């Protein structure tokens, strides 16, 4: 009886030793069995058998490359920390639908959805769906991000007034990262999210936009090409190999 008791204790101790000894191997094996993801790791499966299955529970956030079609430089860019939604966003408001530029080499007939604002263009009647908005004591009519004021019995397009707040972003907004906040760029106007919608703000200096504002005028300043729109100049510059435009002070 005593002997069997002794053996059972020894058996337990040896079993425990075996488990502890095997633990690192088990952990290592589990790590190897993890599906490939991120920048490297093991292959899913070779040889046309059953592919390794990826558990969707812990999938990392998708990355966005600016260059494609290369093995040599296949690594994704360093992850960009996306800002949390502003605390002013009401809980029932859906996040803004905005395009986030990716690979600039791609030339897609991207329907930005812009209305192609043209300063001073006149209309005999307002487009349907326009509403009145008062900014700094001045009245405007607004339809899908384009602003109008009455003139000679009709209406003319005017620059988007700073401070105007729209309940929703106009179609075709492009998401632009600023240092302190996210801007939405549409038809040459910059919007920021506020409690009751999206407010037009002065063009931030130093940001890079993928397209010029519609109708921006070309200038030559000290032999350098620049474009001007609503008091802000835009300098063409190659970014990731393609021409984009950086806002600069006039």
């Amino acid at each position, binding site marked *: 009886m005593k002997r069997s008791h*002794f053996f059972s204790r*020894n058996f337990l*101790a*040896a079993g*425990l*030793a075996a488990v*502890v*000894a095997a633990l*690192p*191997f088990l952990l*290592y094996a589990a790590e190897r069995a993890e599906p*490939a993801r*991120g920048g490297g*790791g093991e*292959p*899913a499966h*070779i*040889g*046309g058998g059953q592919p390794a299955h990826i558990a969707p529970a812990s999938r990392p956030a*998708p*990355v*966005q*490359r*600016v*260059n*494609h*079609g*290369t*093995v*040599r*430089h*296949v690594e*994704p860019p360093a992850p960009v920390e996306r800002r949390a939604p502003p605390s002013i966003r009401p809980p029932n408001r859906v996040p803004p*639908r*905005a*395009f986030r530029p990716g*690979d600039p*080499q*791609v*030339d*897609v*007939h*991207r329907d930005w959805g812009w209305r192609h604002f043209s300063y001073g263009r006149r209309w005999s009647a307002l487009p349907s769906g326009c509403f009145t908005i008062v900014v700094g004591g001045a009245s405007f009519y607004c339809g899908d991000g384009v602003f109008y004021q009455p003139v000679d019995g009709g209406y003319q397009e005017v620059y988007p007034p700073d401070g105007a707040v729209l309940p929703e972003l106009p179609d075709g907004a492009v998401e632009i990262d*600023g*240092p302190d906040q996210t801007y939405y760029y549409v038809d040459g106007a910059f919007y920021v999210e506020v409690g009751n919608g999206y407010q037009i703000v002065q063009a*931030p*200096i*130093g*940001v890079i936009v993928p397209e010029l504002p519609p109708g921006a005028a070309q200038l030559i300043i000290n032999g*350098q*090409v620049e474009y001007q729109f609503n008091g802000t100049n835009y*300098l*063409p*510059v*190659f*970014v*990731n*190999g*393609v*021409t984009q435009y950086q806002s600069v002070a006039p």
Partner: protein
Amino acid sequence: MNGFDRILGRTKLALRLIAIVGLMAGLHAPSARAADTTTKPAVDPSCDKWLKRMSDYLAQAQSFSVNAEIWQDVNLASGQQVQAGRNITLQVRRPNLFHAEMHSTRHHRELYYDGKSITLVNRDQNFYGTIPAPASMDEAMDTAIERFGIAMPLEDLVVSDPYQSAMKKIVSGTDIGPVTVLGTPCEHLAFSLGSVDWQVWVEDGARPVPRKIVFTYKDEENSPQFIALFSHWDFEGKLPDFLFNFEPPPGASKIGVAAIKAQNDAQKKEGK
């Protein structure tokens, strides 16, 4: 010594054994992992042979030109995924001359490398920009992407040792088998680069050139693909110097080329 002391003694011994074995196993695991990273990727021999054959053929070519039709998936803001196309004409004269011309419906761009600098050209707006570049094509490609975010088009075909360059990134590879691409008999190879899958169709014949390449970016939203279809491979034609030397056309404006750091700094300065 009574029974209790004996059990206690045995338990102490067992614990010592556990500690020793555990320590040894713990030491072994990282070394096994380190050894694992230095082992060759899991590429089957036939796949490896085809990749090497194609790579050696391209590496040994002193000069070549090729056309590529590119189709690339793009995710629109609406959530719709569409394909966008462009054409690239590539001219290479080893060791250090490179010219690529990119055409799409709305854009016409060029990239020159002459062993001293890389010049980007926007033909639509008549802009160009130049950055200094190392004398070696491989280093120039690395500088272009690491400092300026510029991927030299189809650089995997141009690099001095395409096989070694690819094998550094390949995790696994398998030979899918023979298949035709636009009527040309090819061998279909499939590779994993980790979170990206890469397929290449190599012409089966005396001239083992790639006829098609597909990248599938599994770590990007909706797993977009990059597809290149190659045609007009030419290893015989003369590629004169003027093809690789950029001369600004009349009225061209020189504009800046933003370095990656400068792009970030511009964002930081905003509003200050």
